[in-house]
């Protein structure tokens, strides 16, 4: 039986101790150990056996996998469960099995190397002693809240007891994993050793414990320092209210699971009644696990896992080329941002810009970001200077023969770009790639500047590059699979989420965003105020910023320019509100010249709405007569409408998965909604069509808001 092979006892005779039961996790047909139901049942069986056989003096739990201890519960199982009863049964069973570990009469040692997450972490919490390798693969924590659930196998109860309230909240509420060094510092593990010594040192640990008599222990956290003694005891309510405030701020109230976890911890902290505490945890778990939010967050998790496994060209076996040195043309905001992200991941970067001052600015951008990390002690001064050393630059093509790829981020002008690409290609090796970071020009057209267009593609980053995870990888007509795959893998190496898209106006994300921004301008025209619209999107819908703030970020001139390009490409369905025409002439460029819909301070932080803008755009004082629901629906449904065209008519991307991933990673579309198409399916396509029809007739907007045939023909995006 495979489950018997995946988890078994290997008895071990230890000097000074006697017989030790090694429970070894080594899942067959999988690189990861997961706590699926069969494995949990098998674990129970083994624990019963250990309990029965009085020859055993101690238990060691370890894993045979090179990078993973136990990755957590089986997400496939969680995904398949829908009713509270299913969850109740599974969680109750898990809790009772981990209780068995805690209740064994002999001491249990966890010997940890590799990822120890979620249920894996809850398992080691139920053990008496923990030893871990100091390897970078060893990461311990409880990421459940990231998936919209909470630790349900006793994690909410046992972690605060072991590491204290403050450290536990830090891990559970943010869904964090920590490395071995941190884990040891907070008391989550007792000992830390080199991976090669782990098994010997685990045995030594058992022997050391037995020297003082074979005892179980229930480690409880002892706060250090007067302030911590207060905060972990009499003043714990301060910690709870502080944590609540921070969580509310971080989640804008859209993510219930961290708050639920907080409640559980508040109710169970320092309680001596284990059964009651676990019951509270179980109830809370079942409450959040059945929500759409959890399902949606698991969907987003699946999407990111999908990217990890793919190579950018489905069904094609192709080897991506290794990128060791990367060049950048144009040391502007985007060029500088890409330089930072690449060098941060250990890729050598060479920037070319005709203007030495621009080069200096790009160097400074990277320098300052790393400097901040050094101040926060994320980097030490040696790591800091190693990163700094990876970026160099010049005003000529020096070094270009050594570069594996060059990313072009110069002025958005087809003629100039084609010329520069031809010139650059002449200075590079024939097998090197050039990628354009254009946001609005045709990649296929641009590739005509390259003597070998198969080595040319789009690599579209989003601003600010170090914060926005999305990269659109744009395939030109002649781009080779190898080039696409190389850029896809490079994006991943740079810590980004790549989505391969077909060439076309605005590619995917900008194409979907533009109708949304254009619609916001119509809302403004119809008497809505900037703050009401933006707040509706942020507070009610969950966007990181509203459309007006977004337009300021992108640059108002850019928005209008791109809208006009779209008008040319898509015809009448792209409409500019009269206030946009006025905006064009107003000299307001948004954040970059600190004049837009909002005020900006000297550090470029967004302030209040600039109230003078209404007059500047020939608008009357806002009346705010349109409901928040309509504001949101008109913008979001316009995006869904365009999405149907992009996906079904033009096949810009292959599946709705890519749309959802791109919108979440590129625009901050609320992850708890699962992405644009997931959301559309939730409210149902027929409702979207019905509302679009209503708005288009009411607002005399038949051109821009009428539902597209592609949308009307659709039952749902996900079938």
């Amino acid at each position, binding site marked *: 039986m495979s489950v018997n092979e995946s988890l078994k006892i290997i008895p071990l005779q230890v000097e000074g101790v006697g017989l030790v039961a090694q429970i070894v996790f080594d899942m067959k047909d999988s690189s990861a150990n997961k706590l699926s139901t069969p494995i949990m049942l098998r674990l129970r069986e083994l624990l019963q056996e250990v309990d029965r056989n009085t020859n055993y003096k101690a238990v060691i739990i370890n894993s045979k996998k090179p990078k993973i201890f136990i990755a957590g519960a089986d997400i496939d199982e969680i995904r398949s469960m829908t009713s509270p009863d299913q969850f109740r049964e599974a969680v109750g069973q898990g809790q009772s099995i981990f209780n068995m570990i805690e209740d064994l009469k002999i001491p249990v040692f966890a010997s940890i190397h590799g990822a120890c997450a979620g249920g894996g972490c809850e398992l080691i919490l139920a053990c008496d002693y923990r030893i871990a390798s100091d390897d970078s693969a060893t990461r311990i924590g409880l990421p459940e809240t990231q998936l919209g659930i909470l630790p349900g196998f006793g994690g909410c109860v046992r972690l605060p007891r072991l590491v204290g309230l403050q450290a536990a909240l830090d891990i559970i509420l943010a869904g964090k994993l920590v490395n071995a060094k941190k884990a040891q510092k907070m008391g989550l593990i007792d000992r830390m050793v080199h991976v090669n010594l782990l098994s010997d040192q685990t045995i030594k640990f058992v022997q050391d414990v037995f020297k003082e008599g074979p005892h179980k222990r229930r480690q409880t956290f002892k706060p250090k320092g007067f302030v911590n003694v207060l905060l972990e005891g009499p003043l714990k309510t301060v910690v709870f209210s502080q944590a609540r405030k921070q969580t509310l701020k971080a989640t804008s109230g859209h993510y219930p699971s961290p708050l639920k976890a907080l409640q559980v911890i508040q109710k169970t902290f320092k309680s001596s009644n284990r059964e009651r505490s676990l019951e509270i945890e179980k109830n809370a778990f079942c409450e959040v696990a059945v929500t759409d939010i959890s399902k949606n967050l698991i969907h987003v998790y699946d999407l990111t896992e999908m990217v990890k496994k793919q190579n950018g060209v489905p069904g094609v076996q192709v080897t991506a080329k290794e990128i060791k040195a990367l060049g950048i043309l144009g040391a502007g905001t985007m060029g500088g941002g890409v330089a930072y992200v690449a060098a941060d991941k250990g890729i050598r970067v060479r920037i070319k810009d005709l203007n030495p*001052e621009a080069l200096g600015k790009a160097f400074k951008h990277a320098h300052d970001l790393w400097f901040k990390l050094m101040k926060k002690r994320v980097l030490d001064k040696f790591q800091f200077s190693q990163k700094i050393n990876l970026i160099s630059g010049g*005003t000529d093509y020096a070094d270009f023969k050594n570069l594996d790829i060059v990313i072009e981020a110069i002025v958005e002008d087809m003629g100039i770009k084609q010329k520069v690409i031809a010139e650059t290609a002449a200075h590079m090796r024939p097998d090197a790639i050039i990628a354009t970071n254009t946001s609005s020009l045709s990649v296929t057209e641009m590739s005509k500047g390259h003597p070998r267009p198969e080595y040319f593609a789009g690599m579209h980053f989003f601003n600010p590059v170090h914060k926005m995870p999305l990269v659109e990888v744009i395939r030109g007509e002649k781009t080779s699979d190898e080039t696409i795959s190389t850029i896809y893998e490079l994006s991943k190496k740079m810590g980004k989420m790549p989505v391969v898209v077909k060439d076309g106006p605005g590619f995917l994300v900008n194409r979907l965003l533009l109708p949304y921004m254009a619609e916001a301008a119509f809302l403004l025209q119809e008497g809505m105020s900037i703050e009401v619209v933006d707040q509706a999107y942020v507070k009610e819908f969950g966007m990181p910023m509203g459309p007006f703030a977004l337009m300021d970020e992108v640059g108002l001139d850019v928005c209008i320019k791109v809208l006009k390009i779209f008008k040319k490409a898509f015809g009448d369905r792209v409409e500019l509100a009269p206030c946009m025409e006025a905006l064009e002439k107003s000299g307001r460029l948004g954040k970059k010249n600190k004049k837009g819909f909002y005020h900006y301070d000297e550090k470029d932080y967004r302030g209040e709405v600039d109230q003078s803008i209404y007059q500047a755009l020939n608008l009357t004082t806002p009346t705010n007569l349109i409901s928040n629901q309509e504001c949101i629906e008109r913008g979001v449904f316009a995006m869904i409408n365009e999405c149907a065209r992009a996906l079904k008519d033009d096949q810009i991307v292959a599946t709705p998965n890519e749309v959802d991933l791109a919108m979440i990673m590129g625009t901050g579309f609320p992850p708890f909604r699962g992405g644009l198409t997931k959301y559309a399916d939730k409210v149902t396509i027929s409702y979207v069509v019905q509302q679009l029809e209503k708005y288009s007739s009411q607002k005399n907007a038949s051109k821009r808001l009428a539902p597209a045939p592609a949308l009307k023909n659709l039952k749902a995006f996900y079938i």
Partner: protein
Amino acid sequence: MSARDVVIIDGTRTPFAKSGTALKKIHPAELGKVALRELIAKTNLDVSQVDEVIIGNTGNPVDSVNIARVVALNAGILQKTSAYTVHRNCASALESISNGYEKIKSGTMDVVIAGGTENMSQMPTLLPPKIQKTFDELFAAKATAKKLALIWQLFKGDLKQIKAILSGNFRDEYFPVISVMQGLTDPFAGINMGQTAEIIAKEFNISRLEQDEFALKSHQKAVAAIKSGRIKDEIVSFPMPPDFKTTLTEDTGPRDGQTIEALSKLKPFFDKLTGTITAGNSCPITDGAAVLLMMSRERAQSLGYKPLARIRGYAFAGLEPERMGLGPVYSTPVALKRAGLLMKDIGLVELNEAFAAQVIGCMKAFDSNEFAQKKLGLGSKVGTLDPNMVNVNGGAIAIGHPVGATGTRIVVTLMKEMKKRNIQFGLATLCIGGGQGGSIVLEQEA
């Protein structure tokens, strides 16, 4: 032509800046990194080809004791490639080239990076030995009473140190040890480098005016070279951390509008009564780095490089430490002999300007049969040097002399100028504190 000819592909350097100015905060390893990083870029060098990195340095910064390795790794040289630091005082960066030459010539290696880096601004000031001794004892002390006694002693020592600093008496045993000053004092003869130049000035009857005029010319030639952009191709521009706002693109030492009047007003620094050596006719203490890429001819060919020059021969020679400034006169005939050439074959010379008096002294000694017979054991003079072919783009008096880097700087300047003027043979030579001379003879590659 032979496969084992040692050729120089290209070279580059940072701008040089007077100590305590533009580059004072940049670590010498960082200066070296910038120069080397740009050399790699400029030559599109595949770093996996590099066999060795050899860097000259005299300051020996305590946090980078083998600074060559730090420079190499920071600049992107692979970890598998070895690197070491050499120290031959003022000729350290010529020593690095000669090391590379031997390794390539012998067939041991094919690709070597040689150079030098120095930040004289950052040479440390050390505790006076008396105080340091107390300090060491305090570290070792165990008993509290002993510790307290030593702390009290340290405190008293500090007061004495402050007194010594205020009195300005360098010889006071409580005066802190200033590394730069120590480095410029000959440990054998016990005199300062400036005083060695005073000896030459007096023995060769070199007047103050002669020296000041030489210094003026050095500035004029250097300023002209900067203005015409003639030496732009040997300097890398350098946006300076941490704000990267200013890009240093040229040497800061050469003074436009330098006048003989201004120079003649300066007081002699080393001999107040009868001296002629001033801060104006000596080279300033300077920060900077220079590197070059050398290969065997066969490797250069297989990689498709067109070298700038080939090394025909080099030599180092010794003389009286108190006349160290005449070093070039001793090493040059040996280098010429090894190159199979005579002084009359040489069309361009870089003779490092430690002091105007010392350069003028060298020119006189080169041209003297008597000197050749008495001092060099030669039948007749080494040869006449036409002043118009010496230091045509100015010298260290204007540009500066970062001790560990100059050797490479003059070789880079020489080979690039040889190319521009189409000169077949060139000589780079410098005097070395401690009583040595170093010379290298180059042939332009067609």
